[in-house]
Each structure stands twice: as structure tokens, then as C-alpha cells.
């Protein structure tokens, strides 16, 4: 006997709209959303970005103004307070720490994003080319990377900054020069595993030139790895810049960055102006934390191997 009810439900299911397939990206998105730490970190990052963009319109003082009432006795008068508009207090020159922190956040985030951006562009193209072309070209290109990686880059970066003058563009150039090395290695490894797949063979068979295969077929397939690594690279770039600024060799006044602010706060904490250390440090730490967690979350989401 045919079960009428079963037949009916089957008919109903057949007449439904076609089941929507899930792309790997949608899968990844779902996995990422389920990762609580990564989602919270994403929110934190958005808040920090909003702070950097709109913070200045909340500030009562500009970052270059000096509050002459506070100057000289920041320890007693420069406390964080809402009454005089210094939400984060002032430094001993009477400059408002809130707007300085906003400025430092802008500079540090910019350094991180641009450094990672250079790494993504140069590292991806370099690694994909080396991996795709292979042979002697590959050997020479990767040996060069090995040699460059063996050089203590922080010392060379400081050497560059001292010799060619300390400017933002030099800082970007210097950080960009070293940031792509690791990336190119990772990308090359991925390219090697991609290049013998059928769709690349098909492209080659139809006569697509090599550079076009790299840009149209290889690079888009690397996006997952590149995205993960770029997210993890941003905090490293921020760390490098902060390190140099902490030594007093990075961005110059009136510009500032997290590293410069932390260095200043660390230098004056003996005088009881602890807020000068704590506020920049807080933003620095939560941002780095958030970037690491988002990077980890992205890796879990985009790397189906560990499922």
C-alpha cells in the first residue's frame, strides 16, 4: 500500500523552491558568527575605529591646545575629569590626553592597516609569481626572501629612519619593506598546491598568459589565507611602530601614536600621573587583543581542515 501521507509530503517538498546551496564563503561567515570571542572582538574593533574617526568631535580640547591652568602641575590639576573637559586628564604640558589618544589611535591604526596593505599586495603578487613560475626563478626569489628575513629588520628600519629623516612616509616605507616577506612565503606555499589543479590547467590549455592566470585564477583562490594572515599582521605592524615610537625614533611631535603616548606615560608615572600611561595602554591592549582574536576566528572559519 502506498502511504498517502508520505506521498503528499514528498509532493510538497518537490514543489518547494529549489534548496539554496551554501557557498563556502557563507559557510565561513556562519562559522565566524558562532565564534563568540571573535564576534566580541569585531565589535571592539568597530568601536575603536569609531573612536578614531569621531573622537575629535567629542573632545572639548584640541590636541595642540595647552591648558594653561594645568601646565606645570599636571599631577594635581590634570586628573581625568568631566568638569574641565579633560576626560582622560592632561600631560604635564597641559595637552588634553583624550584628543591626543584619538590622534594616536588614528596614527597607529593607519600604520597597521597600510603596513598590512603593502604586505597583502606585494607579498601576494611576489609569492604567487614565485610559486606559479617555479624552477630557477622561484629558487632565486625565495632565497632572496630568506636572506632578507635573516636581517634584524628593526635595526635596519631604525637605520633607515635616522638616515633619511623621521617622517610618516619613511615609516610606512620601512615597515612596508619588511612586512611582505612572511606573506610571500605563505602565499607561495598555497600557490604550489593550486597550480596543478584542473582549472589552472584548463586556463593554460586555452592559452591564457601566465600573468593573467596569476591575477585571475590564482590570487582569488588565495584570498582566504591572505585575509587571515593580513588580520594577524595588522597588530604586528602596530607593535613595530609602537616599539620604534617608544624609543623616541618614530613619529614626531605634534603627531603621536600609541607607542609614543605609552612611552610618555611610562616616563612620567613617577610623578603620579598614572592616567597618562593607562588610557593609551588600554586602547593599545584591547585593539591588539581584538585583532588577534578576529584573526584566529577567521582562520577557524576559513580553514575547513580543522572542522
Amino acid at each position, binding site marked *: 500500500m502506498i502511504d498517502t501521507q508520505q506521498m503528499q509530503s514528498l509532493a510538497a517538498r518537490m514543489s518547494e523552491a529549489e534548496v539554496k546551496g551554501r557557498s563556502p564563503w557563507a559557510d565561513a561567515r556562519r562559522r565566524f558568527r558562532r565564534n563568540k570571542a571573535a564576534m566580541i572582538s569585531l565589535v571592539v574593533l568597530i568601536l575603536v575605529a569609531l573612536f578614531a574617526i569621531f573622537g575629535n568631535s567629542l573632545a572639548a580640547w584640541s590636541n595642540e591646545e595647552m591648558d594653561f591652568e594645568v601646565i606645570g602641575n599636571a599631577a594635581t590639576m590634570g586628573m581625568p575629569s568631566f568638569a574641565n573637559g579633560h576626560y582622560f586628564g592632561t600631560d604635564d604640558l597641559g595637552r588634553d590626553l583624550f584628543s591626543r589618544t584619538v590622534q594616536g589611535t588614528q596614527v597607529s591604526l593607519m600604520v597597521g592597516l597600510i603596513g598590512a596593505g603593502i604586505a597583502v599586495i606585494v607579498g601576494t603578487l611576489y609569492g604567487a609569481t614565485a610559486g606559479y613560475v617555479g624552477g630557477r626563478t622561484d629558487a632565486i626569489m625565495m632565497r632572496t626572501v630568506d636572506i632578507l628575513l635573516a636581517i*634584524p629588520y628593526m*635595526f635596519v628600519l631604525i637605520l633607515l629612519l635616522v638616515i633619511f629623516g623621521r617622517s610618516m612616509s619613511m615609516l610606512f616605507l620601512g615597515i612596508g619593506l619588511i612586512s611582505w616577506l612572511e606573506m610571500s612565503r605563505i602565499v607561495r606555499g598555497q600557490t604550489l598546491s593550486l597550480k596543478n589543479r584542473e582549472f589552472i590547467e584548463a586556463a593554460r590549455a586555452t592559452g591564457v598568459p601566465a600573468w593573467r592566470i596569476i591575477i585571475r585564477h590564482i590570487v582569488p583562490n588565495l584570498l582566504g589565507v591572505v585575509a587571515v594572515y593580513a588580520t594577524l599582521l595588522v597588530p604586528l605592524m602596530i607593535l613595530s611602530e609602537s616599539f620604534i615610537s617608544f*624609543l623616541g625614533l618614530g613619529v614626531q611631535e605634534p603627531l603621536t601614536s600609541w607607542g609614543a603616548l*605609552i612611552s610618555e606615560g*611610562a616616563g612620567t608615572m613617577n610623578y603620579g600621573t598614572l592616567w597618562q600611561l593607562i588610557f593609551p595602554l588600554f586602547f593599545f591592549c584591547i585593539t591588539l587583543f581584538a585583532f588577534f582574536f578576529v584573526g584566529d576566528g577567521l582562520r577557524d572559519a576559513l580553514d575547513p581542515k580543522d572542522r
Partner: protein
Amino acid sequence: MFGYILRRLAVAIPTLLLLIVLSFLLMHAAPGGPFTQERALPPQIVANLNAKYGLDDPLWRQIVNYVWGIVAHFDFGPSFVYPDRSVNQIIAAGFPVTLTYGAISFIAAVIVGVSLGVAAAIRQNSWIDYLAVGTSIGAQVLPNFVMAPILVLVFTLWLGWLPGGGWGGPIYWIMPVVALSTSFMASIARITRSSMLEVLGSNHIRTARAKGLPESKVILRHALKPALLPVISYLGPAFVTMITGSVVVDMYFSTGGIGRSFVDSALNRDYAVMMGITILVGALTILFSLVVDVLYAWIDPKIRY
């Protein structure tokens, strides 16, 4: 094995030469000579200075002399800012200090990191595991230049237990070592933990347990060696970062190591000292990565060399 070391040296030596030549060319490309001051010196004096330091020779001869001085006599030349001191003297004054706390930090990071990682892997999901994982995440966002002020704040200003700077007996070593080693300790613990977990799940460990070996022997004899391989390959990059971190330690704790001389020379534009330290650090790095690679090849029988 011998051939492998030779081949690695064949790469290491050109790298070092390249570093020397590059930093020399960089210095040469700098706008203004080393004697450019706010108050311009009379041209005769500049000419005499240039002659004394050999800066009027053709560029290739300067490079050859510089490289030859380093390779043959280990001589980095005179300082451009302090006429009475050579770069060698400046390095010799600071290097023992850097070496002392650097070596202690490195050994401490490896021993504590590996022990913590192994303990965390054996007792997975216990409090010691959470401690190891928690500190390794925390240490990522607390680099040495953040650790240093916090340590001084707590242990010098609030508790008054430790001196905030200077260099003397072992009590002066504590804070520099802690500031320098914590993040590496955490990274090593994390790496050890994950590779140990992987090794503990493998077949040869099951066999070792099945034949009735005591657990301590299983861990020490059979699991530790393969689990340490990723740690060893991490040591090379860790060494570079640690040398870089020593600059912060020298600056912050006034320990008087070469990091201080490096930053001072950077601020004074004393190129000869900067180059000398950069090259020294580069040479140490290259040497160390060579040692690590050889160690790795020696421990891991799967490596073809």
C-alpha cells in the same frame, strides 16, 4: 651533515656581506656628511676630517676597507661623534651586559615555557592548562615595552622590592629578564602544548604505553623529542625578537647594554656605531639560525640534508 653545514655557510656568508655593504651604502646615501653640524665647520677642517676617516677615498675603496677591517681585524672603525672612542670599544662596553641578561632570559624562556607547555598538554583542560593558554594570550598584547613600565610601577614604585634600573648584582637582573622573556615563554608554552598534544595522540606513544612503560618515561623518552621540533624552529625568530627587545630593556632599565648605544647613536646620527651594532646583531642572528638549523637536522631524522 658536514656538507649541509658547509652549504648553509655558503648562504650565510654572502648574506652577512650583503648586510655590511647595504648598510654602508645606506650610510653613504645619507643627506649631509657625518660632520654636518648646525654651525658649519670651515671647509679645511671638514677636508681634514674626511681625510682622517678615509672619507675622501673612492667609494669602492671605502667599502673594501670597511669590509676588510671587519672580516680581517674585527674592527668596525672609529666613532664619528666621539673622536676618542672606537666602535669596538663602545660595543665591548655594552655587549657583556646584553649577553648576560639576554642569555638568562633565553634559557629561562625555554625552560619555563617548555615545562609549562608539557604540563598543560599532559593535564589538558585542567587549571594549569588554562593558566598556560591564558598567559600566552595575555603575553601577546603585553610586549616588553609595555611590560617594563608595568613592572617598574608595581615592583619599584608600589612595593619597593626591586631597583628600578641600573646594573649590578643579580637583583638588578630580575626585571630585565622578566620583561624580556615573558612573551617568549608564553609563545614557547603555546607551541609546546599544541605539538605535545599532537604527539601524545600518535601511534608510537600508544605502543610505548601498551608495553607498560611508566608515564614519566613515555613523556621524557618518547614524546618530548618529537614535540620539541616546532619549538626549535621557533628559536631562530625568537632570538631576533629578543635582541630587538634588549633595546627596550636597555632604554628602560638603564642596564647599559648595546641597545642603549644603538639608540643613542641613532639620535646622535653616529652612523659608524649604528652600522657596527647592526652588523654585529646581523652576524649573531645568522650564526644563531645556522645553529638552530643544524640542531633541527640533527634531532629530526626525517630531514634530508
